[in-house]
């Protein structure tokens, strides 16, 4: 009897936990009329906290992903003021798409098999690599092997952090913090030697006014990250977004956006990837 009470109690607890998470995510308002709504709005998921990629500023939203999203939305027939921006944190992205909270997501969203099983990807529109950001006067990291004696910093649980732990430099010391900005403090005062994640994100940080000239990228290509635009599985948006991306590259808007957002950090970008060409 006692035992049954315990099982019942734990079942209730789990059920509660499940409904609680479900509510938290479902609470987002569903005012999006859908992409075919004509005069309606289009809802786009971006990152709010990555300078250079997608950042919420007092003046509005800025970043490479934001420019791509604006271009794509324009090609789909929406003007800039018809775009409703939503923050899509890494862990939420698949759910936001499958629930229909957003029409598409451009948020440094690398294409991988697990994610492709849940959502469809248009693009890729940018080929990024995992790279290292070091102090401008530090020349000691020339190959991945040099990392084993270094202290690295990355965001808790991110793909880049796991890459370091498992593949690149298992002997390196990894400090994980919740945000890249927390890592930058340590990098500035010497508590860590390098900050690691996608070079596009690092370039965005290094290009910030307050950090100009203090940090540099090492240019090591430690992994391939193919940024794609996520859409709901089976959505007919995929083809339209793909042609929009092709147009963005062919009429030079892509080059301009790259130069504007990543240029100041001495970041050598890869040429625009072909649609569907995913580099493993």
């Amino acid at each position, binding site marked *: 009897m006692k035992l049954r009470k315990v099982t019942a109690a734990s079942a209730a607890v789990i059920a509660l*936990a499940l409904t609680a998470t479900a509510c938290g995510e479902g609470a987002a308002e569903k005012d999006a009329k859908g992409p075919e709504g004509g005069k309606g709005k289009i809802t786009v998921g971006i990152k709010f906290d990555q300078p250079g990629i997608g950042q919420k500023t007092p003046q509005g939203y800025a970043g490479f992903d934001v420019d791509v999203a604006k271009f794509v939305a324009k090609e789909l027939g929406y003007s800039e003021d018809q775009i409703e921006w939503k923050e899509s944190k890494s862990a939420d992205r698949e759910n936001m798409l499958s629930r229909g909270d957003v029409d598409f997501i451009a948020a440094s969203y690398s294409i991988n098999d697990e994610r492709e099983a849940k959502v469809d990807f248009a693009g890729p529109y940018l080929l990024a690599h995992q790279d290292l950001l070091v102090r401008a006067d530090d020349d000691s990291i020339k190959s991945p092997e040099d990392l084993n004696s270094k202290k690295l910093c990355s965001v808790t649980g991110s793909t880049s952090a796991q890459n370091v732990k498992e593949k690149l430099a298992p002997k390196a010391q990894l400090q994980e*913090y919740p945000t890249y900005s927390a890592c930058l403090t340590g990098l500035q005062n010497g508590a860590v030697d390098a900050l690691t994640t996608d070079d596009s994100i690092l370039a965005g940080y290094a290009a910030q006014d307050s950090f100009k000239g203090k940090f540099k990228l090492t240019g090591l290509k430690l992994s391939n990250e193919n940024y794609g635009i996520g859409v709901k599985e089976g959505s007919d948006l995929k083809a339209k977004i793909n042609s929009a991306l092709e147009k963005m590259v062919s009429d030079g808007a892509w080059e301009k956006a790259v130069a504007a957002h990543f240029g100041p950090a001495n970041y050598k970008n890869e040429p625009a990837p072909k649609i569907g060409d995913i580099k493993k």
Partner: protein
Amino acid sequence: MFDFLEGYDLLGAFWATVQLTVYSAIGSLIWGTLLAGMRVGPVPLMRAFGTAYVNFVRNIPLTVIILFSSLGLYQTLGVDLGGDGIVQVISFRLSVLGLIVYTSAFVCEALRSGINTVPVGQAEAARALGLNFGQVLRLIVLPQAFRAAVAPLANVLIALTKNTTVAAVIGVAEASLLMKEMIENEAQLVLIGAVFAFGFVCLTLPTGLLMGLLGKKVAVKR
């Protein structure tokens, strides 16, 4: 359905959670008892310190305390708690320190409520026998106070178990950090969340039941 669990050291992560809990529980029990002693003691300065500490610390979010111990104590002030420059060890010790600092405020208050259940006559009788304050506290009041405080202390212990997840913000490889990694890789938010919620229930339910039994067994019958 659960094949996404493959290749992850789930037990290892929860073991780290258990270690964090046990070390912090021992530390905060000791420091919390000392604080409670200060708060009921005869020296005004110590009373003031105890009151100030409790009211200050329990009103700071734990995340801030833990982040400060890493960014402030370690990275800026260079306090590494004998971690020998190994980031993982330092982070673990710093988060135990942060958890102790935070949890002991709650332990102190739980104990103080236990002390209040001991009839004043007990302390008066002890003093009449010639015991000094330390002896009254150690031999007469605290043993009875602990027996009355088992239930609120169980609450604190369960809260502590769950609070250890905050250690992930400075990169201690415990359960919630593994959860973040898995969510990043597997795109299975709800299922992974459920697995970890269940893991924590497995830790805290027995704690609650055992402490409940203990509380019944040692309760002072009045």
